[in-house]
Each structure stands twice: as C-alpha cells, then as structure tokens.
C-alpha cells in the first residue's frame, strides 16, 4: 500500500546512487592507468610499440585542432547512421510482427544479413556507390538495424498474455492491441536493442571510414598507424570509447524518460 518515491524524487535517488557506486569503476581505471604508466617507464617500452598514458594524453591535448574535425565528422556520421538504422529496424519489426506469415518468410533473411562480413561487403559498396556518404550509411544501417529489430520482435511477442486476453475480451482491434499494449509493453526490450545499436553505430562509422574517406576518426587512425604514431592510434581509440559511452548514456536518459511505472518495479526485483 505504500507509495514509493514519485518521479522527480526517484531520479534524484538514481543520481545519488551513481555518485555512491561510481567510485568503484573509476578506482579500477585509475589503478590500471598507474600500472600501465609505471610499467612502461620501468621496462622502457618504446613509444611506437606502446606509448604511456601520459604521452597519449599529451598528444591528445596538444594536437586537438588537428583531429577535431575528424571527430565531428564521425559523430555526425554515427548519429545519422544510428537514426536511419534503428528506424528501419523498428519499422521492420513492426511490419513482421503484424504480418506473421511475412515474418516466417523473412526472419531467416534477417539473420543471414548479419552473417555478411562487413570487410567483404565494404569494397563492393564502394564499387557501387563510390566514396561518398551513402556506402558508409549503408554499413552503419546494416549493423544498427539488427539489434533493434530482434529485440523489438521478441518484445512484441512476449506481451503479457493476460493483458492481451483482456484487450481481446474488451473488443480491441488488432491495431489497438498493438498500439496500446504490445508496443508500450515492448519498449524496455526496444531500448536494450537501442543501447547495443548505439555502440555498434560508432564502430560501423569507424570501419566504414577505414575503407575510404577523406575525414573521420577512421581516417585519422589509418594515417596514424601508417606513420607509426601509436600514440595517435590510442587517442583515436580513446575518443571512440568516449563517443560510445556518450551515446549509451544518452539512450539510458531517454529510456528513463520514456518508460514509466516500471523502473521502480524492476529495480525492486
């Protein structure tokens, strides 16, 4: 019968929780960095083999203006690819769910699409579409749509049978059952898919840039690698991780905002 914290109260609680529990992972990362730094000094590892964290940080700070435009370009590409890919994924899931026979026919194809090695596909795409933005978006879309489509399809199917039964008894149409019950019911699953896609989108962008582009973190990385600037490679890795993390947290914030009434329930169990 008790009423647990209302919405604004609970977000504050979550913030406190993050601060309270956040020191553990931070401590681990700091310890690892110290270990790395001291070992590279102790064993005098050459910088082209494995630069020390401080060297990498120095490079990252001093040549910011050299790679800032690469960063912007990759961010834009990932976001655009993510939006297109996940929209297509969600759309495919909805269509396949509402048409079970089509679903049976196309589901294997959906899985097969994930078995195409991107490294093999990319040169083909470049032959077909050139070096522009189109083949890159194609690659990101291909890696992004799948997690969302599968998660949403499963989410739709796992709708609570009793609620569905109520809807049918109350005379709901198929579309009403979908829009009022199945879709909101599947939102947590959709968000799990979105989180995976968010990290994939950055990877997809970087991979697509390796294969031919004039700017982007992928290009910066290839250039750095071919001139043995290992420190720059690490700078690129750092920013890729940062970008992934940023996207991921953005999705979590959006999730908190969209999924009502269930967050606390799930936190309890």
């Amino acid at each position, binding site marked *: *019968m008790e*009423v647990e914290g209302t919405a604004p109260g609970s977000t504050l609680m979550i913030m406190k929780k993050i601060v309270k529990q956040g020191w553990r992972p931070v401590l681990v990362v700091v310890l690892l960095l110290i270990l790395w730094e001291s070992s590279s000094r102790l064993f005098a590892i050459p910088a082209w083999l494995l630069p020390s964290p401080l060297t990498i940080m120095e490079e990252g700070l001093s040549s910011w203006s050299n790679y800032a435009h690469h960063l912007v370009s990759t961010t834009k590409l990932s976001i655009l690819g993510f939006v297109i890919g996940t929209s297509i994924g969600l759309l495919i899931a909805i269509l396949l769910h509402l048409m079970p026979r089509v679903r049976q026919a196309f589901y294997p194809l959906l899985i097969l699409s994930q078995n195409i090695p991107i490294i093999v596909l990319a040169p083909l795409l470049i032959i077909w579409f050139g070096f522009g933005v189109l083949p890159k978006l194609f690659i990101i879309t291909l890696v992004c749509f799948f997690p969302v489509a599968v998660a949403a399809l499963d989410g739709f199917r796992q709708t609570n049978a009793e609620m569905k039964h*109520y809807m049918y*008894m109350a005379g*709901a149409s198929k579309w009403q059952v979908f829009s*009022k019950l199945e879709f909101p*019911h599947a939102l947590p699953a959709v968000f799990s898919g979105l989180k995976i896609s968010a990290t994939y989108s950055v990877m997809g962008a970087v991979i697509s840039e390796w294969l031919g582009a004039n700017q982007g973190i992928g290009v910066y990385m290839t250039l750095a690698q071919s001139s043995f600037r290992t420190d720059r490679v690490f700078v690129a890795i750092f920013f890729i991780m940062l970008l992934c993390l940023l996207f991921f947290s953005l999705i979590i914030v959006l999730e908190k905002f969209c999924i*009502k*009434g*269930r967050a606390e329930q799930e936190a309890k169990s």
Partner: protein
Amino acid sequence: MSELKVSEVSKSFGEKKVLQSVSFSVKEGEFVSLLGPSGSGKSTLFHLIGGLFTPDEGDLCLGGENINGKRGRISYTPQNPSLFPWRTVLDNVVLGEELHAKPNKERARTMLERAGLAEYVNAYPHQLSGGMRQRAAFVRSLLSPQPFICLDEPFSALDEFTRLDMQKWLLSIWEENRKSVLFVTHNIEEAIFLSDRVLVLSSNPATVKQEFTIPFERPRREELVLTEEFLKWKKQIYHELRGEE
C-alpha cells in the same frame, strides 16, 4: 437493452466436449452468478460471450442481437486485474472506454473517488495493493460503454478479509448503476451473498444443473452471512454441487 440469453450452447475442443447445451439468461439489471468447480468450462463460456470463440451449436443473444463470435459487446473484469504497468490508475480505468470512444476522464475521476482510490489517481499499478488493483479493474469495466458486465472470479486471488470487503464494495457500487452482471466464481458463499440468482454448473461437459433464486433483500449486509437462512442456502447449493441428495 442488456438482457443476455444463452440458448442451447455447445462447444468442443477436438474430441473433448466442454459445454453441453448450456441455457440460461441474465435479465436487465440482474446479478447472476455461475457457480462451478474449477475446470468446469466457465472460462470457455466467458470466451464465447466475449466473442473469442464461436459456439458449435446454439445462440448467444444480448439485447435481442445475436453476438455469436462478436467481440467487444460486453465489458470484462478478468481474474487477474491486468492493469497496464506503464499507465497511471486513471489512464488504466479509461482503457475500456478508450477502445470504443473518446474517454471521459472527469467521470473516471469521480468513479475512482467513490471506489476509494482518490489518492491513487495518478499512481502506477505497482504502488497499489491487490484489492485496490482489483477495484481499479472493476472500475475499468464499469466505465466501459457496454451495459453488460462479466466478472471472471475477480476476488479469487485475494485473502479472506479483503475478499469480504471487496464483495461489500462491489455490491454498493453495483447498486448505484445496476448494470447486468454475470459473475463467475467457485465460492458458494460469495455467490449467495452477491447474487439474485445462482446457476450451478456441472463439469465434463458443463451444463446448467440447477438454478437457485436467492430471496435476500438488497442492500445486503455483512451479518447476512452468519444467519441460519444463509447457511440453509449454502447447504442446499453445496449438496447440489457435490451431486448428493
């Protein structure tokens, strides 16, 4: 126009005959209970009335219209409240209405107040107790536009005390509206206490074995359950149900 007439309805699933020429009626503004052991085909009967299945033989008529296989003609309170966890209580109780028309939230608010849920209008279902959730589910079917309500063992998951409170509450709310009610239960006392008539179902296949008209006056009080008269009815129905005498 909310008289339900079930005439000679039979239904089988494969080889198994579940309903065998079931006939009964629920008059306008009447409260009728279907009493039967678990697995006696009560749910199947509800699914037929709800239009999820069509009968193999016989007809279901509501207000003079044949409703065989027609969904959405009744409003329904399931055994499990089935409230949507992402909707507030207010948004949940207007769901039944929302499926057919634009919901009237003011009316819903008033109804929730009368159901003792005024404080919980904007709460989510997981913040409510079991009894409150079941009350919200009943308010949802009261707010639905259909004049005929089917309740499928709505109190079976509640403890004894809550159950009695809920029965009294149900009667008090019902007496204000007097929609026709078909109430399914396996609890004899519950059936006698609530109903104008009690229909006893046999099982395998189900058919209406006996009909009892309960003479107690309304509004009914809790003490009624302890009177000799009440006990006499209980014994009689009990024997009928067990197939003795």
